[in-house]
């Protein structure tokens, strides 16, 4: 793909800086890498600021009110006001809290959340580091943040914080499983763990079909989206850290800047999940038109996905913690495993081109479009079967519950009648 405008611009800046440090190329490299990291972090942090503003406005509109509009025109300076508020709050530390653990936990969450941006491609050739295991790196970063949550819960010297931390960790670790299982079909189709290869597979460059993976695996995309929402502990899965439940969970003892870092970690994670979803399933920076428009297409896709996140937050009630675990282990994981098996088998039977059939020796050649249609139909069929089975199961459970409730009520009435009769 020809290099985009953004890549040429960044290359020019990089070469200029390396020219300054031409006496020692090692220092020049380090300075350029440091500058790139700072730019990435600034992009993530500034988007976090205005994401909070967008979220408050959109959720307000869904709830039929206006949202913040006093600080600055249309409330655009609200993030700055929030920042000032966070800075000037008193920085408390509970007594007998483990000082090191308590103070380092928010740092670690922020670091891990921001490190996830290093492998995301923003335009052709514009990526922090072109890791060939990018997808796995993203998931490993997500699991690194879990350690920070335990540290926060334990370091607060507060029973409720510890319990909240345990439950949050159970949720996060549980929803990693369907997340990884649903990335597998994408990785299998693209043949690589690198985000750049996955994006190129969804463009029409160099013989690739221009079909985004959401048209191949809609079920995987939906389950991945839901797991992503649960991973970042956003509504409707925020039972464990909402202010009105378990006293705000693991960050109850944090105030001021440290709480701001937790807040930043949550929103930066949510934005990272949106970018990852757009890259894996919607095609990332691919889009019609010149490759100059790459970042614009990515922005449009990420905005759409994040709007879906905010929409779900504004409309759905919270999921109870046992319902959430039920849904995960009894529905998502089996469906994801069957999905992976199905994609494996169908991918071997129906191959897109002659060359791939020759490589593995078997396969009906149906072309890229044919393969996409077959995978799409199979995915939808699996989703329909799974949902109907789950619905039948839920109805049977509800009927059983109502029956036991009715019998218990009848027993109570009989007992009270008997008591009244003998009492007289």
């Amino acid at each position, binding site marked *: 793909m020809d290099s985009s405008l953004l890549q040429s611009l960044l290359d020019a800046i990089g070469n200029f800086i390396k020219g300054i440090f031409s006496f020692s190329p090692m220092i020049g490299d380090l300075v350029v890498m440091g500058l790139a990291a700072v730019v990435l972090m600034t992009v993530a942090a500034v988007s976090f600021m205005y994401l909070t503003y967008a979220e408050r406005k959109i959720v307000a509109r869904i709830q039929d009110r206006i949202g913040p509009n006093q600080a600055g025109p249309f409330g655009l300076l609200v993030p700055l006001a929030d920042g000032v508020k966070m800075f000037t709050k008193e920085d408390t530390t509970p007594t007998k809290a483990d000082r090191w653990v308590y103070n380092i936990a928010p740092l670690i969450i922020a670091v891990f959340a921001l490190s996830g941006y290093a492998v995301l491609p923003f335009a052709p050739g514009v990526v922090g580091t072109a890791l060939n295991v990018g997808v796995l790196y993203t998931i490993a970063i997500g699991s690194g943040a879990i*350690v920070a949550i335990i540290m926060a819960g334990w370091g607060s010297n507060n029973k409720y914080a*510890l319990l909240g931390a345990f439950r949050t960790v159970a949720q996060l670790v549980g929803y990693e499983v369907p997340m990884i299982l649903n990335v597998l079909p994408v990785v299998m189709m693209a043949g690589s763990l690198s985000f750049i290869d996955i994006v190129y597979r969804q463009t029409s460059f160099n013989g690739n079909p221009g079909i985004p993976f959401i048209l191949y695996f809609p079920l995987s995309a939906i389950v991945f989206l839901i797991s992503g929402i649960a991973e970042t502990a956003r509504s409707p899965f925020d039972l464990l850290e909402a202010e009105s439940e378990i006293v705000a969970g693991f960050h109850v003892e944090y105030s001021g800047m440290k709480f701001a870092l937790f807040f930043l970690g949550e929103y930066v994670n949510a934005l990272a999940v949106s970018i990852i979803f757009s890259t894996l399933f919607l095609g990332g920076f691919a889009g019609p038109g010149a490759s100059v428009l790459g970042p614009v297409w990515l922005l449009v896709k990420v905005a759409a996905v994040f709007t879906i996140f905010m929409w779900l937050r504004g409309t759905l009630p919270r999921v109870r913690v046992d319902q959430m675990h039920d849904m995960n282990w009894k529905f998502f994981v089996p469906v994801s495993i069957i999905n992976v098996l199905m994609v494996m088998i169908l991918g071997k039977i129906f191959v897109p081109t002659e060359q791939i059939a020759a490589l593995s020796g078997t396969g009906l050649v149906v072309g890229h479009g044919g393969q996409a249609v077959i995978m799409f139909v199979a995915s939808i069929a699996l989703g329909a079967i799974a949902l109907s089975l789950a619905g039948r199961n839920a109805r049977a459970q509800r009927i059983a519950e109502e029956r036991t409730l009715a019998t218990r009520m009848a027993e109570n009435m009989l007992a009270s009648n008997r008591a009244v009769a003998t009492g007289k």
Partner: protein
Amino acid sequence: MQQLLFILFSVIILGAALMVVTTKNLFHAALFLILSFFGVAGFYVLLEAGFFAVAQVLVYIGAISILIIFAVMLTRGMQSMTPRNSQAVTAAVVCGIIFVVLLLVFQPAIISIDFSRVISTSTARQLGGIPWANDPAFTSKAVASTMTDDYIRAFGNALTDPSQYAVPFELASVLILLALIGAIWVARERRPFEILAERAEISRELAEEEAADAAAAQPAPAPTPLPEAAHATATQSDGH
């Protein structure tokens, strides 16, 4: 540059490992263990095996460390545990012996560190400039040829090829399945009759213990009151 990174990661790993075994707070020990796992991941990156570095973070830090932390937190008396036990001296002696044995096995490597190669900026794929054995198979040329950029594919092929490592892979998955089934069985929801049976057994054991205690405590005070009791009953029967 590579040597600098090697020294940095070594300091992290060894320092964190030292803190794991010497710190008094068990939770801090678990956190230092996590730090040393990060250092090992860094080593994997130095060896240009990125997949294994990320897998190390994902598995060790993302799963095993969390398990260790949960186990530590559910231990009673965690704060007051002393870091020493009575076998510390024996353990130190055995570790010293193993260290000396390993030093003798790697003897040619330690003696022939070529310091001119240590601070090089080449992309040689050897760890820290040390030729790890005099065996020509371990020289940098041989190592460089096995870790090509396609190593993930080779790894996948090795895991599923019946002539390579497919059998250990399947055995490992069977082992994990056994552990999973065991965990679910141990932590299963008990039915009412099972709960009642367990309670009956516990109360039976407690009653047996109490009977054993009472029988053990009986013979001591028995002899002395007997003559007086016999005398008392004799006088009472006389009084009738």
